[in-house]
C-alpha cells in the first residue's frame, strides 16, 4: 500500500481555515458582545460562547458562518421565543456595516458582515441549570423554548475524537472537503456529515485508530455506501438522522431524496477511487486516484513538500519527544530526546 501520509497531511493543511480567518471570527464575536453590552441587551455569564463547527474545530476553509450562543437571563423563558428574537434583532439592527436577518432562522438572529464575508448566527440561550445541562433555545416554529445541548454535543465530539487517536475531526474535515468538491448543490449540510461520522465511530462501525488517513477515508466511503445501499437501491426516501443536540429532532429534515441520490452516487464513485488508491502500486498512481475524490483540493507536489518541511521542522531531535515504538509522529510522545546532527554524506 503506498504511503500517502504526506499527501493527506498536506490536504489537511490545505483545507484548514486560515489563522487570520479564525482570528477574525473570534474578534467579531467579541465586538458583538461589546455592542450588546453597550446597548443594554441584558446577558448573563458567560454571556457568549462559540458554538457550531468553528468551535468544534470541524470547520474548513473560509468559515462562512459562526454560531454564537448568547446567554440571556432565565426570566426570558417567560417571554415568547419570537419576542426575545425580535428584541435581539432590534438591538442589532444598528450594528455598523452589518445586516440583520431573521428570515429562515428558526432559533437565531443572523448578523451579516459583508465586509468580512462572515455571518454570525446568534442564538439566545438560557442556561437555567448551568452549562453542564441542556440549554433552552427559542424555536420560532414551535413557539416555545426547546432544550438543546450544543455544549454537551461539543464535549461528546471531543471525547470521541480523543478516544480515537484524534482522527475523527480530521476525517470530518476531509469528508466536508470531498462534499464541497463534488457537490455544489444538493449537498448534505456539514452538520449531517459530522453527525453521521460521529455515530459511526461511536457504534464502532468505523474504527479509526492505528489506521492511516487514506484507510480511514476509504473505510468511511465503504461505511456510507453500505449503510445506505438498501435505501438508495430500493427505497424512496432520504435517511433520517437524529439530532444529537435536540431530542426527537432530525438533522436531515431538508435533505430531499434527489439530494440523497446525488450524495450516494458521489460516495460510490469516491469509494471506487479510494479502493483503487489503496491498492495502487505507487504513490503517483494513488495520488491520481485520490485526486478524483478531492479534486482541486488534493495537494500538488509542491504543497506536499511544503507540508513535509513544516512537519520535519517541528520534529527535531532535542525538542521533539518520541514514543517507545520509535514513533516520531503519531505516538504517545513520552521519551525526551537529545539533540544531534547526522553525519556523513
Amino acid at each position: 500500500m503506498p504511503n500517502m501520509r504526506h499527501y493527506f497531511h498536506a490536504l489537511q493543511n490545505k483545507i484548514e481555515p486560515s489563522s487570520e480567518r479564525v482570528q477574525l471570527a473570534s474578534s467579531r464575536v467579541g465586538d458583538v458582545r461589546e455592542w450588546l453590552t453597550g446597548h443594554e441587551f441584558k446577558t448573563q455569564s458567560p454571556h457568549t460562547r462559540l458554538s457550531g463547527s468553528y468551535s468544534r474545530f470541524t470547520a474548513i476553509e473560509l468559515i462562512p458562518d459562526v454560531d454564537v450562543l448568547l446567554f440571556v437571563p432565565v426570566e426570558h423563558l417567560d417571554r415568547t421565543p419570537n419576542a426575545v428574537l425580535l428584541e435581539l434583532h432590534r438591538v442589532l439592527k444598528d450594528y455598523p456595516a452589518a445586516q440583520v436577518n431573521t428570515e429562515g432562522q428558526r432559533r437565531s438572529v443572523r448578523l451579516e458582515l459583508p465586509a468580512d464575508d462572515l455571518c454570525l448566527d446568534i442564538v439566545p440561550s438560557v442556561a437555567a441549570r448551568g452549562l453542564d445541562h441542556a440549554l433552552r433555545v427559542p424555536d420560532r416554529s414551535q413557539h416555545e423554548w426547546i432544550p438543546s445541548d450544543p455544549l454537551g454535543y461539543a464535549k461528546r465530539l471531543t471525547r470521541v475524537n480523543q478516544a480515537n487517536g484524534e482522527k475523527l475531526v480530521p476525517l470530518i474535515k476531509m469528508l466536508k472537503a470531498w462534499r464541497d468538491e463534488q457537490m455544489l448543490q444538493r449537498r448534505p449540510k456539514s452538520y449531517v456529515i459530522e453527525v453521521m461520522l460521529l455515530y459511526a465511530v461511536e457504534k464502532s462501525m468505523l474504527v479509526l485508530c492505528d489506521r492511516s488517513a487514506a484507510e480511514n477515508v476509504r473505510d468511511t466511503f465503504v461505511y456510507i455506501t453500505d449503510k445506505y445501499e438498501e435505501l438508495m437501491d430500493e427505497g424512496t426516501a432520504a435517511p433520517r438522522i437524529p439530532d444529537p443536540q435536540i431530542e426527537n429532532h432530525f438533522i436531515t429534515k431538508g435533505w430531499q431524496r434527489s439530494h440523497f441520490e446525488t450524495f450516494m452516487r458521489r460516495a460510490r464513485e469516491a469509494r471506487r477511487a479510494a479502493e483503487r488508491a489503496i491498492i495502487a502500486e505507487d504513490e503517483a498512481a494513488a495520488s491520481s486516484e485520490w485526486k478524483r475524490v478531492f479534486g482541486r483540493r488534493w495537494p500538488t507536489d509542491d504543497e506536499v513538500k511544503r507540508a513535509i518541511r513544516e512537519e520535519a521542522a517541528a520534529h527535531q531531535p532535542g525538542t521533539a519527544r518520541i514514543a517507545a515504538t520509535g514513533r516520531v509522529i503519531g505516538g504517545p510522545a513520552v521519551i525526551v530526546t537529545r539533540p544531534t546532527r547526522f553525519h556523513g554524506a
Partner: protein
Amino acid sequence: MTRRHHAPRARENPLLQRVEMGVFFPQFRWGITRAGGVEWRGHLQPTPESPVYTIRIIHEPDRTPRTYVDRPAIRRDACHRYPDGSLCLYWPEEWVWTARESLATTIVPWTAFWLYYYELWFVTHEWLGPSSPHRRGATKEVA
C-alpha cells in the same frame, strides 16, 4: 623522573544498558556477541504508516555502538551512513560515545529520527533533519 601509577581503566560493560533499554524500549532483545559485547535487536516505526524497521545495534566494550537497519532494506543511495551501512547518527566532532552514555536516550531515539528523515527524503530528496557541516568527499570515520 616521576612515575605515575594509573589504575587500569575499567572496561565498559555494555550489559549495563539493559536497565534503561528495558524501561524505554522494551521491544529490544539482547544477546552476547563473540567479542563480548551486546547485540540489540528490536523494532522501530517512526510514523503509523511507516514499515516496521528491524534494527540491530552492536555494542562492544569501549567501542562506539553501531546501528544497522536489517529490514526493510535501506536504499543504497541513502545519506548519513558509513561505508559498512551503519547509520551516522551524530557528528563525532560534536559528541562522542562514552561508557557513561545511554543507548536508550541517544542511539535509539536518534535511529528513530534517522528513519523518519529517511522516509521524508524519499519524497523530497532532501535530508530535513539536522546535519553536520560535512564536506562531500571528506574522509568518513567508521565508528
